[in-house]
């Protein structure tokens, strides 16, 4: 076995979390690097890095329903919004600043799971539509969901504060421990952004592990069967209704948790944020990262969220300067973002994950071409 990592001799091994010891070793190294980064990173990199960890949770959710179960959803922004507002309403403490907004003043230990559960509940409500519709028609319905959701968020002032006004995002206070304030943890001084990063890191590791395990369980295999051919799956005895509902529920749960946390970094929620663009961002994370891969979802989320920083970084070394040129950084980012989707779909449908596989295979066989 040693030295032949491609050799798989049992089904159990094929679906195991890590096939080789090397993989395990590298994962540990990667995790250590991820833990070491925030200790020296400047804040303008650390803030998007923290956001990208939360976004990765949402991207994993979308990948579960779209990548694994094959149910195309452009409505992720809606579920993110549901999570964000549930969390905000549950967390806000009634006071003079609440201006008649819904405020219950619960702790993070309540609002975080609640945000996921409420979103999951809505996912269950939407899922029956997916039973009747397939492919593009499903994409349309989920697209419509974003518009209806946005209208709901704009109109329901008690919950959202209304368009243009908004409300504060949920408060990151876990059993009295504040993540959004500087302070000492076990004798080490950490800034608020560092604390948020570590929170995101822990949550992401847990959620990713759960998702990875889910994907290789009975449920995950049922998802894959439905994606590959729903009729064949049904004939094999997979209950389509049951598993499509499960797919939407789990995906929405992840989206709800991600939505609840995403905006805590900036601290502010505005109904117009949950638009089609946000949905497309998540679809792009999944596509750029790698469809039906957990590691790909994380890579995609980090890449897409850090894109503005990357562009800033790269533009120092390019002859084109966004500060003086006709297109500013934001526009450049949008164009690059659009073109990246196009380029990845044409040249590397497996996304960053596919690129990684290619690089790995190249070095595996090095110095031979195959």
């Amino acid at each position, binding site marked *: 076995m040693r030295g032949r990592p491609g050799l798989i001799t049992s089904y159990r091994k094929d679906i195991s979390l890590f096939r080789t010891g090397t993989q395990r070793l590298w994962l540990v190294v990667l995790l250590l690097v991820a833990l070491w980064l925030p200790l020296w990173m400047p804040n303008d990199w650390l803030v998007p890095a923290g956001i990208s960890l939360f976004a990765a949770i949402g991207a994993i959710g979308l990948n579960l329903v779209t990548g694994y179960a094959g149910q195309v959803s452009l409505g992720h922004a809606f579920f993110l919004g549901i999570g964000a507002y549930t969390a905000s309403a549950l967390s806000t403490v009634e006071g003079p600043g609440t201006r008649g907004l819904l405020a219950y003043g619960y702790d993070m230990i309540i609002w975080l799971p609640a945000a996921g559960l409420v979103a999951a509940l809505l996912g269950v409500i939407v899922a029956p539509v997916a039973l009747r*519709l*397939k492919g593009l028609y499903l994409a349309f319905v989920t697209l419509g969901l974003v518009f209806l959701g946005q209208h709901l968020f*704009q109109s329901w002032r008690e919950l959202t504060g209304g368009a243009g006004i908004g409300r504060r995002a949920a408060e990151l206070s876990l059993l009295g421990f504040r993540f959004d304030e500087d302070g000492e943890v076990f004798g080490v001084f950490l800034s608020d952004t560092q604390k948020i990063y570590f929170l995101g890191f822990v949550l992401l590791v847990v959620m990713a592990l759960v998702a990875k395990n889910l994907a290789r369980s009975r449920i995950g295999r049922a998802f894959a069967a439905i994606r590959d051919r729903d009729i064949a799956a049904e004939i094999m005895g997979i209950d389509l209704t049951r598993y499509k509902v499960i797919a939407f529920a789990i995906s929405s749960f992840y989206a709800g948790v991600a939505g609840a946390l995403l905006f805590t970094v900036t601290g502010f929620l505005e109904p117009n944020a949950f638009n089609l663009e946000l949905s497309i961002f998540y679809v792009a994370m999944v596509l750029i990262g790698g469809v039906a891969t957990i590691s790909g979802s994380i890579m995609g989320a980090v890449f897409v969220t850090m894109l503005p920083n990357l562009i800033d970084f790269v533009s120092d070394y390019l002859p084109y300067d966004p500060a003086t040129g006709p297109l500013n950084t934001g526009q450049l980012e949008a*164009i690059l973002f659009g073109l990246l989707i*196009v380029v990845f779909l044409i040249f590397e449908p497996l996304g960053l994950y596919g690129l990684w596989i290619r690089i790995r295979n190249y070095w595996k066989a090095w110095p031979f071409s195959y």
Partner: protein
Amino acid sequence: MTQFLQATVNGLSLAAVYALIAIGFVVIYKSTQVLSFAQPALVLTGAYFVSYFAFSLGWNFWLGLGLAIAIAVFLGLFVERTALRPMIGKPVFSVAILTIGLDIAIRTVINDLIGVDFRGVGSPWLGQWDWGGAVVRHAQVATVVITVVLVVGVVAFFRYSRLGLAMRAAAFDQEVALAQGISVAVVFAVAWGMAGGLAAVAGMLIGTSFAGVSAGSAFVALKALPAIVVGGIDSLPGAVVGSLIVGLAEAYAATYQAGNFDFLGANFSQVVPWLVMFIVLLVRPYGLFGTKEVERV
């Protein structure tokens, strides 16, 4: 009654704009099996260039429109050749997402050109008539007339011309069409060029019927999506009927919701098209006229 008449007039002109965009969608979908989310970008491109030639430069309106159509057609052809040709045979959804990517890239450039203000389009239809208390703007009539002419033209093209026949054949079965000597590449190009041209006209009409061209015009174009879904994404008559339903529903909602159904929130009419789409899809999963997908086991 006057209110009803007014709402109907507004609805019809809105429906006409949706119909033009919707037909572009359907033509592309039928002949290339691609659902193009890039249509709003083409609409915006057309609208911007009409505005640029006829308004900013002050050229003759029709000349400007012609040039804008030419640019949009070229853009459609360019997009098809560079981005969509390599994707032939790939999953429908991947291609749809690819067009979203294109849409973002193109729209960002055009939005930068448009700037933050509404731009006029320099159209010759500025007056209005009074029909029994209802205000009918010349632009609205022009919208309906132009749409009817173009729709009839497109239908006639598909029914009577050789190329139209070829396109119908390719829509039916690409491989069989190839075997009959039809150049599917030409069919694809024509479909995208046609959609580009129709989008440019629709963009101009959005500019004339609303306050002008702005970055938000793309959202008007996006509302043609529920229209084609209501009609069924592969049906030309469906696109027209769907546009009528969606446009009228939106206009009636805009007129009657305020005061009667205030709890639905301000600007509720903007989401009515999507709501109509939900209801229709729940009852008929393939739209009103869409071909039901037959699956072989």
